């Protein structure tokens, strides 16, 4: 990726002060920055790096982005690691499980036993060794993203190595975590999105850097009414009734049945429509099963637009669904950071979210949206917002300001520059 972008493209959005600081902080960075993850496309990490790396380059910092390779078995192993570190559970679960999370706990032990076979660890180490031999990790600041390439630390010869953890490892499967910790503890530092996702037993520095969205990406850029209508027409959605939208993978932990139940409660009193737009990852057999269950739950209701992105929705389409909405939902039962919440808030929409993971950092209850704990709670808040457009407008406006100050890519870039300075000089007061 050779694209360079100027931070000054963001002047109208974040003002001059931060952009001047980015230039000043970058002036004192010398050496090469390297980012390593497992894919150039798909998923939140790749999405952020695609936007962040051109900005590093625009600040005249030599920056390289490498991805590791592996076979299907390797990625199946790392996906299993991800799920077990994240506390995510899968398997056949009752569609009504949104009210019975405890049922999943029994299944967890079974999955743990299956997934911690010695062969998995060998596969992980084998592919990290292959990548170590093929890749030159000679950066002065090497950011290794998530567990997949974590074992590359064995190739460290120079520079500061930072393990950037995008997932919640606060309650991991102990076997997987102990295996991974042996690698992570050899890094110079780690970065977590929030204290709630971190570990007390790492023994290395732990910086806090929340993730971000890019207001100039296709997913978030302003769209004209004509562009929004074009997308809605394509999916045969009209705007004669207010729209409630949840954009999320077809995954049990996103509680799509709970969203449908809440919508049905509201629908009895207020004529409205629901968009559930999501994809199914190619390596996620459970996703199609969840989609079919949700399809059954929707039961042919004409105002439920169950949209399966296959091929995946374009970023402009996601953007248009969110901008056409009156209320955005993210009623997750368990969530990582849940940046889709910031996407909704940035578009000036109030968000109703489950009080889990990173959602409460984005949804300030009663200020940028509402945190809910039940179907009934979600329905009540949806109805409040549909009946009071001024309230919805005010919360949406607050949400946009909250994101502007906390969750935009320019703040993310500044944090990385500060972390780099901090690694060069471990004092708590650094004078440039």
């Amino acid at each position, binding site marked *: 990726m050779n694209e360079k972008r100027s931070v000054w493209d963001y002047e109208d959005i974040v003002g001059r*002060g931060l952009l001047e*600081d980015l230039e000043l*902080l970058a002036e004192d960075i010398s050496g090469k920055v390297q980012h390593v993850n497992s894919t150039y496309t798909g998923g939140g990490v790749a999405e952020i790096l695609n936007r962040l790396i051109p900005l590093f380059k625009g600040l005249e910092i030599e920056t390289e982005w490498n991805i590791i390779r592996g076979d299907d078995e390797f990625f199946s192993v790392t996906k299993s690691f991800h799920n077990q570190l994240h506390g995510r559970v899968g398997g056949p679960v009752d569609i009504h499980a949104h009210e019975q999370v405890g049922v999943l706990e029994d299944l967890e032990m079974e999955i743990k036993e299956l997934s911690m076979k010695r062969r998995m660890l060998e596969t992980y180490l084998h592919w990290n060794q292959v990548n170590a031999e093929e890749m030159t990790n000679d950066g002065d600041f090497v950011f290794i993203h998530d567990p997949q390439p974590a074992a590359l630390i064995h190739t460290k010869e120079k520079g500061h190595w930072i393990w950037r953890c995008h997932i919640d490892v606060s309650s991991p499967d102990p076997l997987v975590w102990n295996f991974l910790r042996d690698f992570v503890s050899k890094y110079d530092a780690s970065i977590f999105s929030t204290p709630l996702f971190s570990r*007390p037993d790492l023994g290395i520095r732990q910086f806090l850097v929340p993730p971000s969205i890019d207001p100039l990406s296709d997913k978030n850029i302003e769209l004209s009414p004509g562009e929004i209508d074009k997308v809605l027409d394509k999916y045969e959605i009209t705007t004669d009734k207010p729209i409630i939208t949840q954009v999320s993978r077809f995954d049990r932990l996103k509680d799509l049945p709970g969203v449908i139940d809440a919508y049905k409660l509201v629908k009895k009193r207020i004529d409205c429509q629901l968009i559930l737009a999501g994809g199914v990852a190619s390596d996620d057999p459970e996703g199609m099963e969840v989609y079919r269950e949700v399809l059954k739950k929707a039961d042919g209701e004409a105002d439920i637009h169950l949209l399966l992105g296959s091929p995946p929705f374009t970023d402009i389409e996601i953007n248009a669904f969110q901008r056409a909405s009156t209320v955005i939902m993210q009623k997750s039962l368990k969530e990582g950071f849940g940046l889709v919440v910031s996407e909704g808030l940035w578009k000036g929409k109030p968000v109703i979210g489950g009080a889990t993971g990173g959602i409460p950092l984005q949804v300030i209850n009663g200020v940028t949206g509402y945190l809910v704990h039940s179907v009934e709670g979600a329905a009540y808040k949806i109805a409040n917002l549909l009946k009071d457009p001024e309230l919805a407008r005010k919360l949406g406006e607050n949400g946009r300001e909250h994101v502007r100050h*906390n969750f935009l890519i320019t703040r993310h870039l500044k*944090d990385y520059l*500060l972390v780099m*300075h901090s690694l060069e000089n471990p004092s708590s*007061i*650094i004078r440039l």
Partner: protein
Amino acid sequence: MPDFTFYKARYQSELTGKSARDISELISVIKEVDESSIFHHIYHALLDYHFLPLEYPNDFAYWIADVLHEPALAERLADPDLREIHDLEALRARIMSIIENYLTTHDVVGRARSGQEFHFIRCISVIFPTRYVASNMGEALEILKEIDLDSIFYYFIASRMLGGEHYKEFSRWVLENDSRALMESLDNLYPYGFANLNAMRTEIVKIVERYFWEHL
């Protein structure tokens, strides 16, 4: 008269790995934690964007009210009278003394549930010169009106607590501009009582403008 270059700082949060679930754990960590952590938890909220003035303007007060449900102690910590406090060790001692005095007459039994712990965060301050340079007080006034609020925070709060080097330079420069009265007025500004940094900036600008009216 030499020109005066305005500085500012940006702050990066780092976890200390220490956390507290009740008042006794909070006290024992406050006693030993890096002083930059005390700075972070007392002051960072001033730098954050808020929709409404904060009920409790520092993390200790907020957590004690919200999680331990001890609003009377939270209110005492919310305005700890920092007039005579000029360094972080003195600030730490003031916080400790407020809590310990309260505990002599009250039992604080609240305990955080999982996920509500107080996580102690260390603050890395990266200090650097801005592009704003003044050659006289008139120019300094214009800069104070438009400079980033981070610079206002840096000069009037952070620099004073983090050794005072740049605040003293500013104070000396104001004095060298024959403005002893102005220097004293700015030195006496009590920065903790403002609802936000914009309000603090307004007061600083008012002090300088009033000085101009009276003396120039």
